[in-house]
Structures are given as C-alpha cells and as structure tokens.
C-alpha cells in the first residue's frame, strides 16, 4: 500500500489553570493515498486538535508526522512552504472561515497570491474561475461577499480555496455539520467527486456517524485523546468491538424504521482530559469496567487485519477469541 500520511505517537497537550490537558495523547495511524480516514468522537475528544496538529496549525507536544515518507520536523523552511501547498484544510463554520471583507474571488485567490503561482492578473483570474467551476459556483458570485451567500455556497468557497494550491491531502474539519441535510448531501457528493477526479486523500473529522460511514474507507473512533477503535468502515459497523463504539453507534438516531435495535444509554458525561489518571479513559462510563481498567492502559490489539481495538476485556465482551 502507498502510505501518504504516517502519524507516530502524536501528542498535543495544552496548559490550563487546572493542569495539563491531554487533547491528543499518543495516536499512531496512517492514511493511504486516495483514501479517506474518518475521525469520529464526541466534543472534547480531541479530534479537531488532531486535525490542526497534523496540518501544523498547532505545534505538537510529541511524536512525529511523516508526509510522503519524510518527517515534517526535518524539513527546511522552503520545503515547509512547499508542503503547505500539499496539505490543506476545509473548516467547519462556513460563516467564520471566510474573511467577511474579501470577495469570493479574492478569498479563493489568496493561496495563489501567497505562493506567487500566477504570473499576472489574467492568469490568476482564469485559475479562480476554473476553481469556481470545479466546485459548482456560478461565476456571477465572483464579486459577492460571503454574507450575501448561503451556507452551502460558502462551504464551496472554502473548498475552492483549499483546492487552489492543488493539494494531495485535505483535512476536513466537520465540513458539513453546519449545513442543512439537503445542502450537506450536495457538499458530500462534491467532496467524493473531487476525490475521484484528483486522487485526493482526506482526513474527515466529524461527530456524525452516518456521514462518516458514508464517506470513509477507514474510521478511527477517539475518546478523550486516545484511539478506541480503528477499522475499515464497513467492518466497524458490522463487527463493533469496543463498548464505547457500540454505545456510540446505537445512539445514532436513524431514519430506518426497520430493525430498530435496543439503545445503549451511556451513563454520565465526558469530562475533560486534564491530568488524566492511568487506565482506560472510558472506564468511568463503561458498564463493563473493572479494577484493571482503572489502573492499566489498554493495549491496542489488531483483532482482524486492519481492525484495531483498545480494550482489556474485548474478547470477553464480544465472546470472541483473538490469537
């Protein structure tokens, strides 16, 4: 397999008045070229921090990120600037992710200008109108301001802006959460089309499990900065092994009236991972938790090829046996 992004033991801590907040705490994973890794978790699980750390908006507290086989840490200044073009990001809020005082075309052109890609205004203009065409924005909006457009169109601007530099890898941070369902579907289709057309690799961060299943080839479930379960998308939904993932999946309200299953209601709420104790992060809410869970960090086991689970009692809970 051709690995594009390789993340090893990535950590990101924040200093807070209450102590160290372990937002991302030792994550290891990779993403293959042309695939989509979905990152799922509830608010406060560190998924947005993960995206921002991988892309370099936040400095990491530990670990390494390899892009196309090269450690990002060892790049020279020029190489880093070159890397900026290859890794892009699409943001959650189509309202705050666009500069309100820049027109649509100015916003899209910003990256092209920053990297001096176009020789003159005419070429810049052609590029921008190509990009607008690619994301399905009518050219009459070129001179509009973001506040004159609806959420779906704004999100298209954000996508065009990210595509401007011809990236290979895009972090999508909840790109459809703020949109209505019919618009959400339009944007998801657009993202899928672009992936096929340009061979893009996505890291798709969301709290919406239906969306993540739809778009991802692989899914990683996070809980309080840790990996809980990671597996190919269909496998995760068919053989859900971790108790947290099980509860999460059962909590999704589905429009499918047939075969409604009993819902697992988790007790308690997520706390914030400030100076966390050793042991499984999920232990406090887990119905199966025992003493061992509260003392020892669970190891990450590969149950079947590509399916990783971090739970001490995974075999017992699911009645399976792993060699």
């Amino acid at each position, binding site marked *: 397999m051709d690995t594009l992004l390789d993340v090893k033991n990535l950590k990101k801590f924040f200093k807070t008045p209450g102590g160290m907040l372990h937002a991302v705490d030792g994550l290891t994973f990779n993403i293959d070229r042309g695939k989509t890794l979905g990152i799922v978790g*509830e*608010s406060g699980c560190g998924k947005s921090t993960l995206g921002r750390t991988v892309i370099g908006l936040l400095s990491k507290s530990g670990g390494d990120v390899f892009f196309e086989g090269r450690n990002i840490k060892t790049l020279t200044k020029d190489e880093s600037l070159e890397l900026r073009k290859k890794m892009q990001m699409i943001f959650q809020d189509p309202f705050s992710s666009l500069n309100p005082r820049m027109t649509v075309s100015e916003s899209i052109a910003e990256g092209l200008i920053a990297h001096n890609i176009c020789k003159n205004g005419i070429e810049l203009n052609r590029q921008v109108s190509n990009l607008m065409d690619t994301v399905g924005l009518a050219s009459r909006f070129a001179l509009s301001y973001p506040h004159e457009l*609806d*959420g*779906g169109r704004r999100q298209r601007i954000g996508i065009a802006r990210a595509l401007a530099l011809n990236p290979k890898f895009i972090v999508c941070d909840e790109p459809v959460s703020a949109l*209505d*369902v*019919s*618009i*959400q*579907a*339009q944007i*998801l*289709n657009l993202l*899928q089309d672009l992936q096929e057309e340009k061979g893009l690799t996505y890291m798709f961060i969301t*709290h919406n*499990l*239906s*969306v993540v*299943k*739809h*778009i991802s080839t692989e899914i990683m479930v996070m809980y309080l900065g840790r990996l809980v379960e990671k597996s190919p998308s*269909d496998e995760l*939904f068919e053989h859900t092994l971790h108790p947290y993932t099980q*509860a*999460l*999946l*059962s*909590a*999704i*309200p*589905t*429009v*499918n*009236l047939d*075969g*409604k299953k009993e*819902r697992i*209601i*988790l007790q308690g*709420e*997520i706390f914030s991972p400030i100076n966390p104790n050793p042991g499984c992060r999920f232990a406090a809410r887990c119905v199966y938790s025992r003493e061992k869970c509260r003392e020892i960090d669970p190891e990450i086991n590969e149950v079947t090829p590509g399916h990783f689970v971090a739970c001490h009692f995974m075999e017992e809970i699911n009645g399976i046996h792993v060699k």
Partner: protein
Amino acid sequence: MLSIRELYIHYITDEGIVKAVNGVSFDVQEGETVGLVGETGAGKTTTALGVMRLVPNPPGRIISGDILLNGESLLGLTEAQMRKIRGEKIAMIFQDPMTSLNPVLTVGDQIAEVVRFHNKKTSRADAFKKAAEMLGTVGIDPDRMDEYPHQFSGGMKQRVGIAIALTCNPGLLIADEPTTALDVTIQAQVLNLMVKLKKEFNTSMLLITHDLGVVADVCDKVAIMYAGEIVEFGAVPDVYRNTGHPYTIGLFGSIPDVKKKVKRLSPIQGLMPDPVDLPAGCSFEPRCQVATAECKTLKPRVGEISPGHMVKCTHHWREANHGHSS
C-alpha cells in the same frame, strides 16, 4: 389538544415582507408527539413562537388563522391571560441550553421562580422543595440545586431546561431542537428522558427538529415543513415508508443511512426560495424533479393519500381525488 388553523405569520422588514408561515394547519392530539421537520428558514421556529404568541412584534405579525388550545382560541387572549397559559398549559424547551438559563441565578432559584409565578400562594420553602423534586425527576442530584448554570455541562443544562418546562405540569410541551447542541450519547440520554417524562406527565409534545432520525425515534406523527407550508403530514410509519411529497423524498435521499450502503447521495438540487419572493405556484416547483408546467402557476392543494396521511402536491391531490387519470 392543540389545533392550528390556516396560520399565516409574516415579518414586515425594510427589504420586503418575509412570508415565514403560510397557511399552516395541523393538530396535536392528547398525549401525542408530533415532529415538525424542516430545514433552516422553513418556518418551524416561527410556528412554535406563534403558538406561544411570542413572535417578536414588530417586525413579526400573525396575519390570519387561528390557534386553538383545547378548543379555546389563543389569539383572542390578552397578554396577561397568555402569560398564565405559558408555563402552565404550554411550556417550551429551547435549543441552546447555554443561553436559555439565567447565568446569575442558581438552578434551584430558576425552577422555584416558575413555581411561584404560577402559584402565588406557594411558600418559598415549598417552591424549593418542588424544585428539588423536579431536579430529581430529570436525573440531577437535588443537592446541586444551589449551583449556577455554568457549573453544569450542556446535557445537564438541557435537563434543567426540561425540569423548568415540566414544573407546572403543562398539557403541551414545545421542544425547539432540544438536542441539536448535544453530542450523540448525550442526545440519546436526553431523548430517552423526554420520552419517559412525557409518558409520566401525560404531556403532548411538539418536537421541532431538522433530524428525521430523532423523529423516527420519538414521534408518533410528523409534519414536514417547506418554505412556510406543511407539505406532508401523517403518522411516522406512513410518511417514512410511503413517502408522498417530492421534497420529503429528497430529504430522505440526502441523509446517509448507517444501515444502507449507497455510493452517492441523491440530494435535492438548488436552494430554498427566498421567503420575500416565493414562487407563484408550488414553492417547491423550482427544485422538484417531477414538476410539470401547471406546478409553476397552480398553488398545490392537500390530498389525503391514505387515512390521515396528507400531501400538499398537485399530482397527489389529483390522484387522491380523481383516481389515476392524469
């Protein structure tokens, strides 16, 4: 219980008349939960505010129609009478638990205040006893009564909101996107609680949401709203299995379903029309896959395609009334 008849609510602004609610009619029966579903700007919240008579005026105005609660028209009541109705007969749960609570009052104070407003004779001690009891009902330790809202998490605050709404044992509960701001596992907790309490208190509920999944879980009937009109109304199984209106079909096609594998979603093309400038004929016509020439000019009428299942679409109306002649 609640009956809305041909309700029109408009906002009169400098840019023109925003036609937010255009001839909405539906009923909520005793003990029933009705889901009001629609996208942003469909007029769901305005309808709810209309029922509470809380449409901001100006610029909002109830143009015509009637709202009946147990047969009594709410539109004829004075503001003082309406204040008694709010809380006692109709209560509301808001979307944002962060801003719907007063940050400088303790949670206990806020519940007790509602108790004492609606029953002036209640002593302070009794009101607080009631507040503690209500907190217990929604699964919060009554010892936390003296804490302030910021000490609670989002899910807990929404529980407090529910406690306040149920304090006076209202006959009708209007919940405006009560779980939209919450995480899925917390959403599941809160929905569970709402369903349980609704049964316990024998309350009718109008649940406003954009999430058809939530409706499938908790509602008996569903009203689909588009551009200020109800385009489809019926029992949940009817609407979900035997979907009538092209808009509703489009909505279902837009939602990725964890139980089904589709390569591509089939969304509705285009955007909701500007409520200042609605199409002359059917509001959905510009986006509709099956629209014909007459849809451009003819206002669609409501057809009953099966008992209690209404669809506001010219094609369905014709089928229902004239058989299959086209």
